[in-house]
C-alpha cells in the first residue's frame, strides 16, 4: 500500500501529497521545483496562455483569409474594339509618347528602343493595351501595368505604326471560335506554352530576372497578338506555324481554364506544390502542433 512507499525515493515533490492528505488543501511550496506539476499555476497565467493561443488562432485565420483573397483567381476579359484608324492622330500620340526611344522615323534609338518598322498593329496593340509601353525605363523585362491610352488612342497608334512598314494586324471577331476541341487546345498549350507560362498559366521565371508572366489578366486579343508578335523574349508564333484556328483553340483553352473553379475549392495561386506545401506546413502542421499541446496540457 502507499505507506510502504517513501516520497523521498521519488526524487521530486509530487503535486499532491501521496500520504492521503486532503486533496482540497493546497500543499505548502516555497520555492520553484522542476518536473511533474510542481510549478505554480495561478489563474492569471492560465488566462494569459489561453489568450495567447487565441491570438495565434486569430492570426492563422486572418492569414488564411488574406492569402485566399490574394490568390483567388478572378477572370476578367476586356477586348478592345478598334474603330476606323486615324494615322495622323496616331502620329501625334507617337510624337508625344514614343519618339524618345523609338526614333522619329520608327527606326529605333541605339541602347533605348528597337525599330518599329514592320512590327505591325498587333504588336502595338499588345504592348500598349497591357501597359508595357510607354516603358517607364530600361530593365530586364517590361511588365504589365495600367494602360496609359484609351482604346481609341490605341487604334490610332496601331494605324500609324501599320502605315510605316506593315506587319501583322490585330485580329477581330470571336477569338474563341475554333474547329478544334478544348482538349486539343490544351495539347497545343502544353506543347508550346506551358514550359514558360506554367501548366495552369500562372507564369514562371526565365533566366536573369526575366519572367513569363501570368495569363490571369490577358484578354483574348492580347493572347492572340502576343502569340503572333512574340513580345520581348517570347518566341514568335507565325500564322503559318500555329494557324489562327490553332491559336484560337489555345485561347479557348486558356480562358476556359481561367474561368473554371479549382477542384478542391481554392487554387492557392495555381502554382502547385510550393503554395500547397506552405499551407500544409503552416496551417496544417501548425494546427496539429496546437492540438498536441492541448492534449498534453494539464487539466
Amino acid at each position, binding site marked *: 500500500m502507499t505507506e510502504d512507499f517513501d516520497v523521498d525515493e521519488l526524487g521530486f515533490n509530487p503535486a*499532491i501529497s501521496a500520504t492521503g492528505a486532503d486533496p482540497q488543501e493546497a500543499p505548502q511550496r516555497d520555492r520553484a521545483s522542476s518536473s511533474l506539476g510542481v510549478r505554480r499555476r495561478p489563474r492569471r497565467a492560465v488566462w494569459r496562455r489561453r489568450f495567447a493561443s487565441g491570438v495565434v488562432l486569430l492570426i492563422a485565420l486572418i492569414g488564411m483569409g488574406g492569402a485566399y483573397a490574394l490568390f483567388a483567381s478572378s477572370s476578367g476579359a476586356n477586348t478592345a474594339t478598334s474603330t476606323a484608324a486615324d494615322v495622323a492622330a496616331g502620329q501625334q500620340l507617337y510624337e508625344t509618347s514614343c519618339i524618345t526611344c523609338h526614333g522619329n522615323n520608327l527606326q529605333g534609338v541605339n541602347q533605348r528602343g528597337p525599330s518599329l518598322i514592320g512590327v505591325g498593329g498587333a504588336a502595338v496593340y499588345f504592348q500598349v493595351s497591357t501597359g508595357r509601353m510607354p516603358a517607364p525605363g530600361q530593365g530586364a523585362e517590361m511588365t504589365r501595368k495600367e494602360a496609359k491610352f484609351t482604346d481609341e488612342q490605341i487604334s490610332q497608334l496601331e494605324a500609324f505604326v501599320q502605315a510605316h512598314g506593315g506587319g501583322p494586324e490585330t485580329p477581330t471577331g470571336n477569338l474563341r471560335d475554333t474547329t478544334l476541341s478544348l482538349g486539343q487546345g490544351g495539347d497545343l498549350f502544353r506543347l508550346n506554352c506551358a514550359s514558360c507560362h506554367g501548366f495552369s498559366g500562372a507564369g514562371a521565371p526565365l*533566366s536573369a530576372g526575366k519572367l513569363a508572366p501570368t495569363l490571369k489578366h490577358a484578354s483574348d486579343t492580347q493572347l492572340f497578338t502576343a502569340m503572333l508578335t512574340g513580345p520581348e523574349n517570347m518566341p*514568335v508564333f507565325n500564322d503559318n506555324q500555329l494557324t489562327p484556328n490553332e491559336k484560337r483553340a489555345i485561347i479557348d483553352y486558356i480562358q476556359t481554364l481561367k474561368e473554371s473553379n479549382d477542384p478542391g475549392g481554392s487554387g492557392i495561386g495555381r502554382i502547385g506544390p510550393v503554395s500547397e506545401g506552405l499551407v500544409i506546413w503552416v496551417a496544417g502542421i501548425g494546427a496539429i502542433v496546437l492540438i498536441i499541446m492541448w492534449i498534453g496540457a494539464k487539466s
Partner: protein
Amino acid sequence: MTHSTANVPGPDELREMSPEEAMLVGAESGGVHVVHRRERYPIPGTKAEKRAERGVSFMFGLAALAGVAFIVVFVAWPYVYHLPGEGSQRFRFYTPLLGGLLGLMLLGLGFGAVLWAKWLMPEEEAVEERDDEPSPDEEKLMTAATLSVGFEDTGLQRRRMLVGSLALAGGALATVPLVALVGALIKKPGNQLAHTLWGQPPEKYPNGVPVIYSDGRRVSPNDIQAGGLATVFPGVPGGITSANTPTLLIRLRPNQSVKSRKGQADFGWGDFVAFSKICTHAGCPASLYEQQTTRLLCPCHQSQFEVLQDAKPVFGPATRPLPKLPLGIEVVDGTQYFVGRHDFVEPIGPAYWERP
C-alpha cells in the same frame, strides 16, 4: 528490478478489499506508484458534471452526424464534369466535401476521447520505477552458464567439418535471394538509347525524314518567322508520340551567326537550327526559348543552353550540349519542306552508363 512479491497480500485479503484498493496494490507490486488519484465529480449528478458529459457526447454526436452526411454526399452529390457555363459547377466540391466530412468525423471522435479524459475521468498521476539497474549476480551467472553449456552441446567448437559446411550453406542462403532480386534489375540496353526515330534507313526515306508539326503538317521554312520556335517531330509512324524525338526548330535573325561545334557546321539550313528538346541533364523538355538572348532554358533545374554556340550549356547543371539535328530541304510541288538528313550524331538526353 525491485518488484518485491513478499508484501503482496494473499487472495483472501484481496477479495475483501474494494476494487480501487486492490488496483492500487496491483500497481505497487509492479513498481507503479499512484501518487495522486481523485474523482473530478465526487458528488454525482451536479450540474457541472452533466454539462461536461453533454460536451463530450456532443463531440461524439457530431462525429456520427458527419458520418451520415458522408454517406449522403457520397451517394447524392453531383460529380459529373461540366464546362463553366454549361452546367452546375457543384461537382468541384465532391471530393472536398467527402474529405471534410471524413475529417470532421475523425476529429469528433478524437476530440471526444480527449475531452472524456480531461473532463470526466478521475485525475490520476502515477510514477513508475525505472528498471535500469543491472541484473543481480545470480541471474547473470545462471544465464552465462546456460548459454555456454548450450554452445558446448552444439559441438561446433570441436567439429571442424561441420562448421565449414555450415558456412558454405549459409553463404549460399545469403547469396541466392540477392542474385534473384538484383539479377532481374540488370539488363543491358544495347544501343537502343543511342538512336532515335530520326534515324531511318536511307532506302525508305531517300530524301531524308520529313519534319512535321504535332498535327502532322510538314514544316516549311516560310512558316517560321525570325525569332520563332516550333516543336517538330519526324514524319514516321510513332514519331509524334515517341519520347526521344521532340526537336526544337529555331529561326534566328539574319545578323545572328552560330559558332558551331566540330563537324556540325553544315547541320543548320539558312537561319534555321534544330536541337533535341530533351535536356542533357535529367531529361526535361528544355523548350523555354528566350528569343532576344538566344538562350534555351530548361525549367526543371535551370540549365541554360546558348543557341548561338550550338546549344552549349552556359549555366546550370547540364554539361553536354543539346544534340543538333542535320537539316535539309526537299522540294515537293514547288514548296520547300524541311527534312532530317540523318539521326543525331550522339545519344540524346541524359547520360547513362554505357553511353558511347
